[in-house]
């Protein structure tokens, strides 16, 4: 599929002092941010933080109480969704159940009264993009959740919108499929140079895909940052390690560090060799070992820094640490995420 029209593909989206009140409840308060053309921008926040309301105001399903949205400098105030020409992917897929995959994807083109040949051509392109070629004649109920979501994506892209809005599009998928779709989404976005505005409550998801992340809380943008940047940190217990900033950080800032348990490996020869010299390490004591079939779960005490649970596969020839043994764990700084924490 060809990139959207224009040299840079995507459009610039500017939110200016966007505010939405439902009666006395202010759902979104004074949100201003500019999203660069062709970039992947994520609104990250818990439910009720106003991120979805913000997205709905950009889409045109909710009108702001004050403030406005500008797409390439054009004000959107008063324009209904169908006049905004923005692609949108919903969490519930919202694939039309009475239409085949082909007719679903052809829908926006038929509405725009494109010539039949062009429709055939573009639908084929869009389906190829989401790797659903050959599914044209199926009905949505014959598809898995992931496939339905890909239909929704193809449908939202087929009319070449310059902005794609996504409301937790992967929320209903299982973890493995979600990780796979994240990469595919990022890939497609980079290929089409479309501006993406993405809403999620999943930090890892936000960091995997985004060029910039805005953290929302209580209807306001707390901060906007670029994932990345290496930082050295120290825990209260004196443990030192390095990690990647999940948002803009400053020296001396309090952070929460997160690492997924499956990224931890015992610092034996194989583990250190795999991670290289810059790996983070920590020493602990095995407090408990729980055998769970193909793996063993270890509860490892870290002294004053608390403890953690890791899972190690029961490899052939591996010498499993026994309860009470000292254990050094290692993990890559790349897998460590640092989240800013408000000062106490």
């Amino acid at each position, binding site marked *: 599929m060809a990139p959207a029209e224009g040299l840079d593909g995507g459009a610039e989206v500017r939110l200016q002092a966007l505010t939405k009140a439902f009666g006395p409840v202010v759902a979104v308060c004074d949100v201003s941010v500019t999203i660069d053309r062709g970039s992947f921008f994520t609104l990250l926040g818990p439910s009720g933080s106003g991120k979805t309301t913000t997205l709905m105001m950009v*889409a*045109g*399903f909710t009108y702001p109480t004050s403030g406005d949205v500008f797409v390439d400098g054009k004000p959107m105030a008063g324009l*209904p*969704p*169908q006049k905004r*020409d*923005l*692609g*949108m992917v*919903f969490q*519930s897929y*919202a*694939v*039309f*159940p*009475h239409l085949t995959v082909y007719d679903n994807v052809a*829908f*926006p083109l038929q*509405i*725009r009264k494109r010539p039949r040949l062009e429709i055939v051509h573009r639908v084929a392109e869009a389906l190829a993009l989401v790797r659903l070629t050959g599914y044209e004649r199926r009905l949505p*109920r014959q598809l898995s959740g992931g496939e339905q979501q890909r239909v*929704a994506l193809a*449908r*939202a892209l087929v*009319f070449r919108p310059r902005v794609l*809005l996504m409301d937790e599009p992967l929320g209903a998928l299982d973890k493995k499929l979600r990780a796979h779709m994240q990469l595919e989404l990022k890939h497609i976005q980079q290929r089409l140079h479309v501006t993406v505005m993405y809403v999620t409550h999943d930090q890892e998801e936000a960091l995997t895909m985004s060029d910039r992340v805005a953290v929302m809380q209580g209807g306001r943008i707390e901060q906007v940052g670029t994932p990345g940047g290496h930082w050295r940190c120290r825990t209260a217990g004196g443990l030192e390690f390095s990690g990647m900033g999940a948002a803009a950080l400053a020296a001396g800032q309090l952070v929460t560090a997160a690492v997924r348990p499956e990224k931890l490996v015992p610092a034996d020869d194989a583990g250190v060799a795999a991670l290289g010299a810059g790996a983070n390490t920590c020493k602990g004591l095995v407090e408990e070992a729980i055998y769970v079939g193909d793996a063993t779960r270890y509860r490892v005490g870290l002294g004053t820094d608390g403890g953690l649970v890791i899972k190690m596969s029961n490899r052939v020839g591996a010498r499993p640490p026994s309860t009470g043994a000292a254990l050094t764990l290692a993990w890559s700084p790349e897998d460590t995420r640092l989240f800013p924490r408000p000062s106490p």
Partner: protein
Amino acid sequence: MTALEERRDRLRHLLALAPALIVLAALFAYPLLGIVMRSVYKSGYTLDLYRQIFRVPVYLQVLGATFKVSAIVTLVCLLLGYPLAYVLVTRRPRTAQLLMIIIVLPFFTSIIVRTYAWMVLLGRNGIVNQYLMALHLTDAPLPLLYNQAGVVIGMTYVLLPYMVLTVYSVMRGIDPGLVRAAHSLGASRLQAFRRVFLPLSLPGIAGGTLLVFILSLGFFITPALMGGPGDMMIAMLIEREVEITLNWAFASALAVVLLALTLVGFVGYNHIVRLERVFEGRG
């Protein structure tokens, strides 16, 4: 599940169904059999009565009028009921609830009382005609009673809630997100309705029209009170044979014809709209 368990399961289901089946057998299947028997047995099996129905023009006229009035009433119910149901699903739940109570309220009154009320409204000097003349929309009172118009008005009034409730229940199952998705893809309100909402509500239209049509075929009180001499429907004919001419055998034959034609209509309809899919909740 083993074969034995499966059989035991089926037996349990049968047990649960037993009371209903017994009641149906005693009060429905057995009398129905009696009606069929009475219509074909008169000191020996004969189809004379059926021949009579299809040979005498009056009976065919009554049958024709029955189907015609039923079709008109069904259409009017659909035209009035569909937008009403649509308004119901688009209102806030509390408003919808209130409207729903208003729609169902007439069910709490006897149909005879309601029909007489209509007669008061529609008569030559009824309220409707008084208003029409006061507004100079008409000079002479319109004939709204004792003709087909009166029958259609009365029957539509009684049957409209069935249409609204059937269509509403299907519309409520339509994800409003689908209409929003259509808007996000560029569809205007009309386009979103025509290409997404309407096709998805078709099962409701199918179910509602079928229900109203079948109920119409057997209508008796409204056409008897609000129709004219030329608006006899088959149920009235049957009643006359039972009550006045005491020709129960002929009444039975008429009833069987009505039942058979209804079944034929049902099968034909089923062929077109695939009711089993309607009842599975897909279009």
